[in-house]
């Protein structure tokens, strides 16, 4: 849609692109800019660098690792960071290769937009500092782009979910992994998806009581796809590890249930857990109160793809109702020169992300160096990726929200946390004012117009807009991936251009 007729296609683009700049004079573009230093981005960056490309790796965090391998800052002196991680050595291996490589790791860089220039190169715009407020905007040019921007947690609202003490399951995990803190002493873990087991295991290992893991789905759906399960024993091992930890700490897992209300005035005091029918509709009269001082909630992950959709990359609907990028066999998107890896193509975990990152790194190198990148390793990587993708699809289908979930949503529950838009107003826009999709609901209610730009309420708004039918996922439009000071935009001409030579 956004490509002009004169845009070179893959072949022509490859033929026209000169080889990597041998004498990298100041101002030369990088060969590859990688956005995101989690498993996928790290693997992509080190692979491409080891194959001879000049690589910039941008990430908003001060340390590499992404969300999965988030870990304490050095000053916290953690002797055993691996105690909070599965497969920690996979990360330290990548981290060592990064340190030994020539990759320019640009930590604390918040990418707010990417653009394809007329000459086919990419410009990456970033803010700097821990939260992007340091006021020194940076612009990076590169001949290829690899987006490994990961995912954010999917949330479904319920009465009381805005009370302090209700936190994202992934959020509780992140705060624990990096800050070594807990949101409370008795933490109910609720929602849906395999992350809940990992979070409950971490929280209880770190000293929290977890009175229950409340999972809305059953796990029976996994059993319907035994082949994908058998082909992915590492996933079973991971689940067993969490399961053992939960057993050790006597954490009960309650299936087909949901937290349908949080009690408390200024902070959490208890929750009501109700049984769900097959469609996730709460069964009246089954509510049971559990005392707790925190709740960690999440319903799986949503690929973070706005940088890619902003330049017109095609998407594909995933089995759990989210959208991922449509990628070819070598991880390239529908926009030539833009590759993606990891959760951006569909949530599948750290090992899949690593595999896809390496595959993308090889594919970019092959394109830019004008030679095929080792058929042997690529074929093997593709097989591993396909096997793990198949499992990821099974898992995501098992945890797709059931259509009846909004049965627990009272009209006065805020759906949009930022703009404080209650469910009743969303329902009114649908029933009275002719809104049938998330975008129209947003226009008429402001749901999704606040600071987070619909990241927290997008799923719920789309479901409510569809009025009980399965919502058709559509790409969220977020041309600004992070908020940008107007003074920064006004001074874009003077942004610091980082090029291959400018790093120290």
């Amino acid at each position, binding site marked *: 849609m956004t490509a002009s007729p004169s845009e070179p296609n893959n072949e022509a683009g490859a033929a026209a692109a000169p080889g990597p700049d041998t004498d990298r004079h100041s101002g030369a573009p990088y060969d590859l800019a990688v956005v995101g230093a989690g498993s996928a981005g790290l693997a992509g960056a080190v692979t491409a660098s080891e194959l001879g490309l000049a690589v910039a790796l941008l990430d908003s965090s001060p340390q590499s690792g992404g969300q999965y391998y988030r870990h304490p800052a050095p000053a916290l002196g953690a002797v055993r960071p691996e105690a909070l991680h599965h497969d920690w050595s996979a990360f330290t291996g990548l981290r060592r290769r990064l340190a030994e490589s020539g990759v320019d790791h640009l930590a604390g860089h918040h990418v707010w937009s990417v653009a394809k220039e007329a000459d086919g190169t990419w410009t990456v*715009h970033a803010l700097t500092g821990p939260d992007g407020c340091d006021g020194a905007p940076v612009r990076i040019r590169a001949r290829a782009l690899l987006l490994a921007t990961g995912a954010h947690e999917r949330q479904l609202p319920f009465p009381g979910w805005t009370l302090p003490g209700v936190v994202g399951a992934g959020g509780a995990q992140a705060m624990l992994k990096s800050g070594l803190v807990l949101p409370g002493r008795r933490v109910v873990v609720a929602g849906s998806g395999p992350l809940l087991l990992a979070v409950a295991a971490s929280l209880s290992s770190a000293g929290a009581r977890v009175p229950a893991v409340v999972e809305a789905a059953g796990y029976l759906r996994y059993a319907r796809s035994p082949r994908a399960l058998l082909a992915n024993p590492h996933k079973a091992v991971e689940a067993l590890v969490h399961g053992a930890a939960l057993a050790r700490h006597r954490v009960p897992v309650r299936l087909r249930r949901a937290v349908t209300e949080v009690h408390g005035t200024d902070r959490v005091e208890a929750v009501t857990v109700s049984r769900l029918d097959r469609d996730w509709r709460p069964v009246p009269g089954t509510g049971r109160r559990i005392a707790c001082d925190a709740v960690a909630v999440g319903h799986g992950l949503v690929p973070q793809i706005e940088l890619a959709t902003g330049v017109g990359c095609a998407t594909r609907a995933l089995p759990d109702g989210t959208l991922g990028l449509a990628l070819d066999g070598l991880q390239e998107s529908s926009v030539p020169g833009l590759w993606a890896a990891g959760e951006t193509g569909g949530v599948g975990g750290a090992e899949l992300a690593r595999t896809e990152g390496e595959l993308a790194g090889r594919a970019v190198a092959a394109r830019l160096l004008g030679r095929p990148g080792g058929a042997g390793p690529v074929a093997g990587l593709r097989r591993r990726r396909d096997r793990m993708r198949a499992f990821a699809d099974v898992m995501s289908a098992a945890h797709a929200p059931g259509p009846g979930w909004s049965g627990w949503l009272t009209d006065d529950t805020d759906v949009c946390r930022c703009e404080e838009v209650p469910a009743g107003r969303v329902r009114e826009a649908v029933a009275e004012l*002719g809104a049938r999709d998330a975008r129209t609901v947003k226009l*008429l209610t402001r749901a999704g117009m606040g600071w987070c730009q619909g990241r927290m309420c997008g799923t719920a708004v789309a479901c409510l807009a569809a009025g009980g039918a399965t919502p058709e996922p559509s790409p969220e*439009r977020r041309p*600004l991936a992070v908020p*940008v*000071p107007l*003074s920064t935009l006004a001074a874009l001409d003077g942004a610091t251009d980082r090029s291959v030579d400018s790093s120290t």
Partner: protein
Amino acid sequence: MPTRETSDVIVIGAGVVGAACAHYAALAGLSVTVVDRGYVAGGTTGAGEGNLLVSDKEPGPELQLALLSTAMWTELADRLPPAVEYEAKGGLVVASGGTGLDALREFAARQEKAGVVAHEVSGDRLHDLEPHLAPGLTGGFHYPQDAQVMPAHAAARLLHAAGDRVRLAPGEEVIGLLTGAGGAVRGVRTATRELHAPYVVNAAGTWGGAVAELAGVQLPVLPRRGFVLVTEPLPRVVRHKVYAADYVADVASGSAALQTSAVVEGTPAGPVLIGASRERVGFDRTLSTEVLRRLAAGATALFPVLGAVRAIRTYPGFRPYLPDHLPAIGPDPRVPGLLHACGHEGAGIGLAPVTGQIVAACMTGGEPPLDLHPFRPERFDATAS
């Protein structure tokens, strides 16, 4: 699925202009079906700032429309729910040099003869109106008739307030026009069904040219892209719609090249909206950082305090642009039963009520409130005079 497939009027387009056409047709006693391939306010209306302006218009037919419509909006503000956020905030046009102010003076003098209220504000009094304005501006003009509404609600509430006579058919794209004896319109075809009516109103905005084509006639509506930058929520920091003097020249220009001028205004919800850019690049939604740079530079030059404020979103809209900058309103003599109400460029929210009133009058034998000759839809035909 609606059961009634026949009505007096079919309006194509559920933007603010289509909503106003449906509203006034229903008030005149007609039954209306509003069909849209999307939902309410899904096109240019949803991307607009909701300006109801007289200040930016040269004396002439468009200003006449705007003055009539502005008066109608004050009446609608009493009748529609508060959600439309009608604010009679007034406009403030500022000049940064002596010649700019002279040009504003001359412009305002001509507008006043046409019925516009405009007061000159000296440079040292600008801050009484807008405390955060940059120092050193030469002066400006205050236009108390300028106002603002929340555009999506304007459309939705105009439809809703019309009651049972208006039936909404969202999510249905019109793929053909049904005609009968003598080529007269008798309805539309969508992907799933036929809807029948003796009148069809083309209120498809920027896509109005494509609807005209379905009827076999030409109407050269082109998209003129504009970006709006939206800030984080703020208290009221800007009271009026404030814009720089060069905005008027940009609005009147027909150039395809990028033009930007600073337009800044607050909203009841908190964010400040920043415009305005104009360029003809088709329906390309891709972000232009050059446009954002110019919008931000213009806005922070007028209001330096906004420099530290963050933009949290931006979006493009596509103004429906006709070569002479006037909308097409009224019956199409080439196709009996077809009426047009599109091509309002950046003024659709403001001009919607009067457009709806004219269209309703044309269908019920009423008297339009002004001479429709300048807006006749067939004026772009090579043979038309």
